């Protein structure tokens, strides 16, 4: 592989790796990430309307 090839490889692989790592870090460190138990929300339409507009 030529020096140019190494530059293209390292730049491309480095860019996507750093971006991926940064995104994972940012997602994991964001506050308020809580597990809901069942993946189904029970919503009362009246409460929902009040919450959304409140």
């Amino acid at each position, binding site marked *: *592989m*030529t020096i*140019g*090839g*190494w*530059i*293209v*490889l390292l*730049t*491309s*692989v480095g*860019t*996507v*790796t750093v*971006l*991926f790592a*940064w*995104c*994972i870090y*940012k*997602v*994991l460190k*964001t506050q308020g*990430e*809580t*597990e*809901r*138990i*069942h*993946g*189904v*929300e*029970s*919503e*009362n*339409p009246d409460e*929902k309307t009040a919450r*959304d507009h409140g």
Partner: protein
Amino acid sequence: MAVRKESWNTRIGVILAVAGSAVGLGNFLRFPGQAAQHGGGAFMIAYFVSLLILGLPICWAEWTMGRLGGRMGFNSCPGILNAITRHPAAKYLGVIGVVIPIIIYMYYVYIEAWCLGYAISFLRGEMNFNRVEDAAGHWGAFIGAGKDGDAFGFGWGEVGGYLIFVFILNFILIYRGLAKGIEWFCKFAMPTLILLALLVLVRVLTLGAPDANHPENSVSKGLGYLWNPNKIILEERVADGTAEAAWRQTALLLPDEYASLRETVEADPARRITKTTLLEKIQSPKVWLAAAGQIFFSLSVGFGIILTYASYLRKNDDVVLSGLAATSANEFCEVAMGGLITVTAGFVFLGIAGVAANSSTFDLGFKVLPLVFSEMPAGGLFGFLFFFLLFLAAVTSSLSMLQPGIAFVEEALDINRRQSVAILGVITAFGCAFVVYFSKDVKALDTLDFWVGTFLIYILATIQIIIFGWVLGIDKGFEEAHRGSAIRIPRFFGFIMKWICPAFLLLIFSTWVIKDVVGLGAGDPDYHILDLFGETANTTAWLSIGVIAIMFSFVAILVSRVKKYRAVYDQPLQES
């Protein structure tokens, strides 16, 4: 009365589900073939520019419109586009977003079965080949490419049993729902997939030059074949005439090798040296079209899947970082894994000639790589790992193709998940049986992939970005996207989403029509066009078009009868 509304469990779960939807065979098989064919360095420049002006804008538009549509009570593409535009025509345009994933599922699950079958065959020690032709023959027999109806075999070396297994697996997972099915599976499958890819990558990068008779077939040269921005290739004449097909690539030369060989080759009419530079390649429209196409198909934008997935988010769940994170996961698997494994492995065992002649997705995956693994030390294990990783990538993608259909049937017929899964199961089983029966030359699969998996997703992506930029509007769209977002979309993306992205999509589409449909400048039209309108029209191709037409009619009739779609015209946009 409380309403039970399905939702995702965690943000990391939905990110992995969307990333799983995007990561598929294209990352490990299509991308490296495209990058090598189109000049490595030049292709990567065009690729990253396309990611910025095409991939990310459409991705953010889909996430944003999906969450907005979900808040208005809709989870399917017709419902979401109808609610956002408040125009009856939009719900019919949204039919495309239901038809695309359902039809792609019909043939994708067939390919998924190939991957599982190959993984198990490696584990059973049955994959021993000496030539590409042997591996190609095995593939043809396994999938029934010889004649229609041959794919319905149920032995270890036939695809039928694997197909039934993966079909049932998909429906069990989809029946369990978003959180317990799709999200649960992707949370295990995606990290496992990346771990397997890393193991195979380490194996490939430590191969050196395994054939003592061909020291030029080394890992270093294999990487250079894909990544070098300027390429010097030695070719030999294999036939008379002036056509490019008369020449076969025989070696990738470094600059010092070129200097020492140049005079000898120039004096030999049976050999020649071709040089391509980054500057030449970057000026070629073909390179830009290939890069844009790869970004487009790789990210699964324009499938209608992200719209549906995002519709299950809550009002203030982040979409900007989530969209970027899912995109970056896909790019990592594609560039950092696929870009280093596939072509390098093929080059090391087959040399430049073997890889250059077999760079399409199926050729690389099911002809070149099985031969590579069968010749590699501990190849049975690594062959199993690689095809099992492809299988996992395929399952996470096929699962995502079912959810838009499930959401639409639930919405249109006002039925529960069990009933909608049953209806979709019957429809996709018939469609899948059609694809598998017409297995000769994989004609049904190929036709559906071209018209639905290529043509229609361009159309839907164009519709979506136009609705986001021109109907919803950039200001309102950005305001909606930034609701609860962990990061902000840079402002210049507004200009890109309104002008550059639609223009680029229309340019790609026009170029395709001029070149491949009309056939101007490139000789004959694309063979998919000739299959339908050429002198020897293909019956299977026409039957495949019939399947697409039936699906369109069925979904459009259902759309026309949904009362809640009409009810939204009287509501303000942000209300639900």
